[in-house]
């Protein structure tokens, strides 16, 4: 909402903005600054040495790779779930609707334990997958599955309202003009949904990067193979190496922030393009 907007229920712009900066500063900026300060006890060489050990590099690869895979999977599944929830009325819909939010509410450690039980060699899923030669628990596949679990609600909940806004008429109009279902999806629905999908993707991705609780159980925590970055940070803390822990945290923070910024810019650009479309 811009400064010039007419209806302002909340008190004036200056007060609101001032308070926004103040509260964000207090609960986001100051903690993050103190994080940076803690690494100042390290020299540049020590910092660089800490954040580029082979174990750290392997952990970045796993954390970013598995988070990316999970967020992409969530875009597909999340879109599908949102579609079913918006476009159909069926028995059990309310249950499905609440089920979507469950990963938000569940302590992630419980999710991790449960998933590990299911996917371990003796678990309900694991025993069948194992028979096919697929190992999930204690591999990077397991990590990606845990991250998909915790990220799903983000895509569903960002896509759903947008999908509700799109009239079925638009799809019918496309159909009467001779568009195939695939064409309708690709040319009519997807462009309109793209910004929401991108937001959902970003949120799921960001959430996955920071996830710890559910992953430590299913990953097996093997150095160089299935260690995620947050575990590495905890490992440093266990050695009372606060500076080393924050050094890795800062690399993580820096890269996620740049990534999120990039996706937000992309989001803005696609939104503008969407609004500029004739007839949109």
């Amino acid at each position: 909402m811009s400064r010039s907007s007419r209806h302002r229920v909340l008190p004036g712009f200056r007060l609101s903005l001032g308070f926004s900066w103040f509260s964000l500063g207090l609960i986001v900026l100051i903690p993050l600054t103190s994080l940076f300060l803690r690494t100042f006890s390290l020299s540049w060489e020590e910092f660089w040495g800490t954040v580029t050990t082979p174990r750290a590099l392997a952990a970045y690869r796993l954390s970013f790779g598995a988070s990316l895979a999970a967020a992409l999977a969530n875009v597909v599944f999340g879109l599908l779930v949102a579609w079913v929830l918006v476009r159909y009325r069926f028995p059990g819909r309310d249950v499905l609707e609440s089920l979507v939010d469950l990963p938000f509410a569940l302590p992630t450690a419980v999710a991790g334990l449960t998933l590990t039980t299911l996917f371990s060699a003796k678990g309900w899923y694991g025993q069948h997958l194992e028979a096919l030669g697929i190992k999930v628990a204690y591999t990077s596949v397991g990590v990606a599955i845990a991250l998909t679990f915790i990220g799903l609600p983000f895509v569903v909940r960002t896509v759903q309202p947008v999908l509700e806004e799109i009239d079925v008429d638009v799809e019918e109009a496309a159909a009467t003009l001779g568009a195939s279902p695939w064409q309708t999806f690709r040319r009519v629905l997807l462009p309109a949904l793209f910004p929401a999908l991108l937001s959902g993707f970003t949120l799921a991705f960001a959430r996955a990067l920071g996830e710890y609780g559910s992953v430590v159980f299913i990953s097996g925590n093997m150095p160089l193979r299935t260690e995620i970055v947050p575990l590495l940070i905890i490992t440093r803390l266990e050695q009372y190496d606060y500076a080393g822990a924050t050094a890795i945290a800062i690399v993580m923070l820096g890269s996620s922030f740049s990534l999120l910024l990039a996706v937000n810019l992309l989001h803005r650009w696609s939104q503008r393009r969407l609004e500029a479309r004739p007839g949109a």
Partner: protein
Amino acid sequence: MPLALLLSVAGCSRASGEASSDGALTLLNVSYDPTRGLYEDLNAAFAKRWADTHGQRVSIQQSHGGSGKQARSVIEGLRADVVTLALAYDVDMLHEKARLVPADWQARLPHDSAPYTSTIVFVVRQGNPKAIRDWDDLVREDVTVITPNPKTSGGARWNYLAAWGQALRREGGSEARAQAYMEKLFRNVPVLDSGARGATTTFAERGLGDVLLAWENEAFLLTREVEEARFEVVMPSVSILAEPPVAVVDHNVDRKGTRAAAEAYLAYLYSEEGQEIAARHHFRPRSETVAAKHAARFPALKRLTLAEVAGDWRRAQATHFADGGVFDRIYAPRAD
């Protein structure tokens, strides 16, 4: 899975509280995972004795979790009256990082402030199908071993040092050959849980691994009380003398005015009654009379001291667990 196990795996700890509306005293004991049952019994017994001798009600709150994590909470301000942790290194950090205890804390109570001891033993599946008898069997190609990550778990550091110590002794003191043993051992470890309880879950509930390295008390808890028919304890010929230490947190008891009770509480651990309770929970008592009474619970085995295995905790930490130490070298990227 029982809820208690779930909660303990999640590392949950009960919150502290010292408010006393009725003149009752509250102590907070910050401990590590495997002592939960032990302190439930000890606390009740001590509260009764304190009420008898001082006419005052005392309630002792317990907090359990990974030993290092617990120590960090205290360093960062959790108002523990006493700490009862897995390794002396964690208590040393209370001094080094926050001056909560004096440097000589370990000399204040008998037996280097460790009222009971333990050791590291093997748990195998019923009938011992892989015929695991001693450390040599753990590096066989057909055996998988479950042990938590020594970088994130105090208990795992005892496991690790037990394996290292016996290897060092067998290999004639050659560190290079002991390291070769450790490399083979950890090649057989398919999962590194972050804590001892997590490793127990992996072995017992998920059915992973042929042998679990565990604290003796946890091993007997698992085989005698929880899963009687499914597991067996195997005593290796040699292991380590694990000495989990206890300490009053001076800074906190002086601020809260609980020093007398906190000191009495730790002294109680050394009393015949306290030793008896420790023995019942499969912690090896220091008292010889109590130990003699419970001899059947504690099969004999040679226990190497930390000094024989790695000097002291500071050296153990630097040699094995710090960055670039032996544990890191075990996992150094290999050509294969």
